[in-house]
C-alpha cells in the first residue's frame, strides 16, 4: 500500500481498462440481485428508449473502484466512495463488448492519513460515464 508520506496532490493512480460484455452483466445481475430488464433484455431496453442493453451503474462504479482498491491493496481502507452516473454504458451483443477506461489522481491530502482520489471513467471517444467520482482512503 502506498504510504501517506509518499503521496502528493497530483499523484497518478495507475489507469486500467475493463472490457464489459453481456456475460459480465448477467453475472452482476446474479451477484447483486439487480435483475432490471434493461441490463439483459435488448428488446425492452431499446423499447424504453435506451441505445442498447446498458451496464448496471453499480457495475461501472464497482469496476472504477477496482482502480482504487488495486492501488491501496486493502479494500477495507476505502472510507467513502461516491459517483454520479452521467452517461449509460451500452453493451452490445458482440464479442468485443465495451471498453471502460478508468484513471485516478490524488486530489487532496486530508488529516488522519486520508487522501481523496478523483476518478475519470470513459468509454468510446472520451465519453465520460461517471462524474464527481471520488473515493477517500486511509493510507499507512
Amino acid at each position, binding site marked *: 500500500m502506498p504510504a501517506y508520506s509518499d503521496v502528493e496532490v497530483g499523484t497518478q493512480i495507475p489507469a486500467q481498462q475493463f472490457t464489459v460484455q453481456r456475460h459480465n452483466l448477467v453475472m452482476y445481475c446474479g*451477484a447483486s440481485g*439487480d435483475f432490471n430488464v434493461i441490463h439483459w433484455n435488448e428488446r425492452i431496453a431499446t423499447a424504453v428508449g435506451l441505445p442498447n442493453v446498458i451496464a448496471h451503474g453499480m457495475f461501472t462504479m*464497482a469496476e472504477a*473502484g477496482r482502480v482504487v482498491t488495486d492501488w491501496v491493496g486493502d479494500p477495507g481502507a476505502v472510507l467513502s466512495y461516491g459517483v454520479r452516473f452521467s452517461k449509460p454504458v451500452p453493451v452490445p451483443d458482440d464479442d468485443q463488448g465495451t471498453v471502460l477506461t478508468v484513471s485516478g489522481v490524488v486530489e487532496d491530502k486530508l488529516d488522519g492519513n486520508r487522501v481523496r482520489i478523483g476518478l475519470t471513467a470513459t468509454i468510446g471517444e472520451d465519453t465520460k460515464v461517471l462524474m464527481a467520482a471520488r473515493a477517500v482512503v486511509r493510507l499507512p
Partner: protein
Amino acid sequence: MPLNQDFVGREYPASATYEVGREHIRQFADAIGDQNPLYRDREAARAAGHRDVVAPPTFLTTLSYRFGLDSPIVDPALDLNYAMVVHGEQSFEHHRPVYAGDVLTSVSKVASIRDAGRNELMTMVTEVTDADGQPVSTITSTLVSRGTAAPKEA
C-alpha cells in the same frame, strides 16, 4: 405520471437481517472480475488485520435487492415504472469495513423527490447497522425516473 410526493420522508426498516456470506463476497468479486485475495482468502484478510474476508466497497448495494420488498420502489402507489429507471448517483460512507459473518440490518428513508428537466430524481438514504446496532455504512442513492416529471407551464 409523476412520482407520488407523499413518499418523501417515509422510512423503510428492513424486515429481516442480512448475514454477509463469504461465498457471496466471492461471487460478487467474481462478477466484477476482482481477484483481490482479501475478498477470497480468510488468512490473507487476517494477515491484513481484518477478522474475516472483506466486502468490496460497493457490495452493500446487494442489501437493497435482498430487502427489495421493504422498499418504496415496489409500492404501486409510488407510480414508479422500473423499466424507466436509471441510476443517477450513488455514494457509500463506510463507518467500518464489512466482513463475512456480519449480521446487518438497515433503514431506508426517502430523502427527496424532485424534478430535473423532464425527469424526476428520487434520493434514498439508507443507514446500515450491525447486530450491536453500531453504524456500518450510510448509503445515498438517487434514481432517475425518465420522462415522468409533470409538464411545465409554458
